[in-house]
């Protein structure tokens, strides 16, 4: 269980997050939705320990992120907006990198075997020996995903992982992949996006944020069976409702 308690963050005179509180249950897929620049990524960076909040706290299974930093860090993995792969390492080495950094006690053979399994899971086993520059944007993003998955952390934080991908060929494919992997792994996911279709397709619950200072505008529960059909009437109704919260200016 993740508990965000009265979180506040300001950069100079700009109040980015204000008195933000919500809970995420174990194994739940929750999307943080809001317009561009509303503070979604700041929230994710606080959750990932890259920023310190000015007020409030984040507690994961009783572990306070600020006081028990290392224990908290061990519970999270991050899928970045840009893949952030090490260009001198091959696909499989980029995945083992996560284990080398967080679990140096894992042997090289064990790390390699776990990385290979994860690459298989994201459909990139045949490209294990390729360098990032030899792969497409979608493939690189899958390695980014595999690097987070291989840690087997309880919580996955995803920061707009589809935003840099080609809409027709890569975005849909990876969106399906994320949905499939979540069903296999059942990790707690906090997914940040400003795309209504991604939010409706992937989430159990959507937390709609207002623009600065970011507060929780509405919680939308998505009770649709999986795999989801975005053209179904209910999916469209949810999508339209969320868009209308921003006067139809977002979606």
């Amino acid at each position, binding site marked *: 269980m993740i508990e965000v308690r009265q979180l506040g963050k300001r950069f100079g005179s700009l109040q980015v997050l204000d008195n933000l509180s919500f809970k995420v249950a174990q194994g739940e897929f929750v999307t943080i939705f809001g317009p561009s620049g509303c503070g979604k990524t700041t929230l994710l960076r606080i959750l990932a320990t*890259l920023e310190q909040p000015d007020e409030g706290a984040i507690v994961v299974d009783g572990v306070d992120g600020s006081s028990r930093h290392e224990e908290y860090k061990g519970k*999270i993995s991050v899928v970045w907006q*840009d893949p952030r792969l*090490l260009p001198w*390492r091959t696909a499989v080495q980029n995945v083992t990198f996560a284990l*080398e*950094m967080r679990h140096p006690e894992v042997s090289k053979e064990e790390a390699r075997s776990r990385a290979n399994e994860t690459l298989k899971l994201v459909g990139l086993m045949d490209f294990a020996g390729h360098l990032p520059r030899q792969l497409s944007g979608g493939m690189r993003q899958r390695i980014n995903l595999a690097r987070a998955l291989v840690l087997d952390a309880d919580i996955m934080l995803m920061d707009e992982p589809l935003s840099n991908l080609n809409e027709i060929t890569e975005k849909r494919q990876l969106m399906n992949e994320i949905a499939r992997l979540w069903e296999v792994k059942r990790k707690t996911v906090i997914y940040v996006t400003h795309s209504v279709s991604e939010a409706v397709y992937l989430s159990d619950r959507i937390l709609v944020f207002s623009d600065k200072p970011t507060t929780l505008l509405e919680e939308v529960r998505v009770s649709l069976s999986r795999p989801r059909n975005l053209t179904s009437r209910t999916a469209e109704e949810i999508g339209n409702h969320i868009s209308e919260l921003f006067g139809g200016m977002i979606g």
Partner: protein
Amino acid sequence: MFPIRPGKRRAWLQAVKGMRGLVISYAITVLLWYGLGLRMGPDIFPGPLRTVVAVGKILSNANLTKHVGITFGRTVGGVILSMFIAAVAVLGARYWGPFRYYFLRVFYPAMRAIPPVAVALLAIVWFGLGTGTVIFVIVITVLPIYMIDLWEGLKVIDATLVEMASVLTSNRTRILKKVVFPMLVPVLFSSTKLSFSVAFKLALIGELLGATSGMGFMVYLSQQEYKTDMVFAWTFLLVLLVVFLEFYFFDLTERKYLYKWQTPK
């Protein structure tokens, strides 16, 4: 004899054509050298033939050849020590605030300003004649090259990769070793390439003033005995060594290993 197939002949001809520029450049240099030798006389400016004979004398005498190895060893030692000290100083300045001010305002400017000859004379007083003095001269002069390159290199490394790693671990040493250091390898490589050519010259000055062995000392000895052809031969050997390292060893290593992960431009 086997006849050369047309395809092979074409490849051979193309290789020769590719070498043409290089051969012409070397030929012009040798001709100029030869002309100067004729004009100024062998005692003042020995020609290429005389120098080659002197080089042959050095290479065929183990007692003389060992001085090449001594200079090479001192140069490598000085460069490696400079790299190590610069890495510690720069990382210290980058990640430890109080040292940063001292590094930027005192240490680095002082290192750049110190003249190598003064250092060599002082080193003789401190370390006596020998390897210590030569390595000290190299370190003091080569250190700023590494320091400025590493300092600037740290500024332009991909911070998003460091951030990605810092979510995985809080262990700074691990991040330095697995993320920061690999990103600095190209910087270190180019500094090393430059440092080697500078360090060889410094080794020669250091040995000339403060050692009883090495190529610099042999140059000094030859000059004292008015053997100008031997001074030329030692200098020629040093030039060969630097050219070999720079154009063959470093360039080949760079092409083969260093940038293979980068997108070809």
